[in-house]
């Protein structure tokens, strides 16, 4: 059963050409980064926040700098949450671009075949056409799936930052 799926997958990659491998690589990269962010949001960050709030005492700092310190702490937390987020965004932008690159290289393949064999041999051109369309589709799918979770992540980060600000304000 698994063999069939593996076979399908390998023939899918064969049809897509080199660009599909680039899309695949970007997809793995993107999802690893997204996964890392979610894991951090739900485990690492929680730990960091609890420790910060535990150690925070109102008598620790000079009165006149309190606003600045509050801002600093919130910004620090935000920085921790946002690490790599801009890279994720770039990957999402790049995905359709790479797909487009696949379209164009596929079309070049098609026109190469046309230049050598003329327009009569449609089967020979089909290879180039699948090289043109499959990476585009894959790029779109990856970008769409990425963008959903990335937006969700941004919302969570905003919520967490505001919550942190309120929590710190309560203590200081």
């Amino acid at each position: 059963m698994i063999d069939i799926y593996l076979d399908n997958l390998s023939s899918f990659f064969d049809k897509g050409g080199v660009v599909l491998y680039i899309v695949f690589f970007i997809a793995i990269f993107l999802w690893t980064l997204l996964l890392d962010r979610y894991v951090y949001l739900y485990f690492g960050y929680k730990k960091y926040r609890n420790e910060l709030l535990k150690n925070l005492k109102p008598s620790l700092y000079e009165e006149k700098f309190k606003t600045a310190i509050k801002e600093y702490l919130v910004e620090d937390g935000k920085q921790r949450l946002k690490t790599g987020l801009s890279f994720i965004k770039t990957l999402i932008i790049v995905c359709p671009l790479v797909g487009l690159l696949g379209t164009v290289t596929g079309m070049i393949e098609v026109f190469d075949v046309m230049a050598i064999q003329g327009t009569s041999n449609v089967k020979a051109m089909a290879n180039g056409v699948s090289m043109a369309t499959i990476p585009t589709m894959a790029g779109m799918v990856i970008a769409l799936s990425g963008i959903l979770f990335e937006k969700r992540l941004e919302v969570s980060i905003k919520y967490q930052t505001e919550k942190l600000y309120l929590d710190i304000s309560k203590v200081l």
Partner: protein
Amino acid sequence: MTKYFLIFLLSVNSLFSLDLNNLLKDIQNDASVQIKEEQKRLNEFKENESKQKQLLNEAKAILSKESKKSERLKTTLDKNEELLMEKETLLNQKMGDLGEMFGSVRQTSADFLTNFQASLTASHNPQKEEVFEEFANSKKLPNIKQLENLWHGMLEEIVRSGNVEKYNANLILSNGDRVNQEVTRVGLFSAKSDGKYFDYSNDMKALVELSTQPSTSLGSSDDTFVIDPTRGTLFELLNNQPTLMNRIQQGGVVGYIIIFLGVIGLLFAFYKMVVLNLVFTKMKKQIKSLDAPSDNNPLGKVINIFNKYKNHDLNDLEVKMAETILKETNRVKKGQSFVKLLSAVTPLLGLLGTVTGMIATFQAITLFGTGDPKLMAGGISTALITTVLGLVAAIPLLFSYTYISSKSGRIVSILEEQGMGMLAKSL
């Protein structure tokens, strides 16, 4: 004057009249002589008449004899022709199915000749072509020896086409030199000598070096051998495959502009990355030792200002710090938008190339119609290649812009939001 002239005329006149008198005398003499001669000849003819008659009779006798002989010969010819007809029918009867066989021998050898002329084995033994040629073009019936020759030639050809062989053959190298050296041949598929692949040319009666050799990824080293199962067609197609340089040339002016912008952008981005990383590491070091500010990084400068004004009024301190931070932020963020601009412009230029390429294509269509796709190929490749170049330039630029902007964002946020808080916390 007139006197002399008259004298001249008179003298000429007297001379002329003298001449005419002489002429008359001469003619009269000649006539009498001729008449005498004619008379003499006439007498001679009369004497010969009887002799002529005898000659005529002799000639008539010979004619009758010869015509008799001709009749005799004609009958012989007719007889012989009849005999020939008889013999020919006899021959046809005796030949029977063999006539068909000779026809098929001729056809087979002609077919075999065309195959042989195009195949690599011809380089092994070029004089063998004559064996096949003999039948293809002759009208004579072959004898048993010639048939055996053909049979053995074909068998040898079949055996050779299945063998891997090494032998000496005439080669024409890419620089035009004719040499005779050892060649390795795999069946009818490929021939290789000295690491180069060859194809047989019947016009040159030699192996000709391929102008485009199979790439090294296919293995043109000595221990690997590339086999072309289409007997040279694929090797020929290699010539049509454009190289990377050809592709770039197809991009035209727009392509070169994109490459130029891409290279400039990447170099600048790389420089920017190095500078930002240096600044960032210095700041990291500074964060660890907040009480020993140095002037070689933005954070150190901010700390200096903070230390200088920390006992002043809070508003005063904030204004002074904001001023320093603004100055440093500007320096850090400088040039960042240039990279972003380039990453946005290169795909646009690619699109421009696409459109100009399509314009060229449609011009070709208006001039030559859509019949020959090869005429449109130039414009289409410009269109596609510029798009590819645009994307290939934009994607790394986009990544480097992200890197630069996140790095500088980090630096700025440390300076702006965190600067004051961090310092206040450390007090």
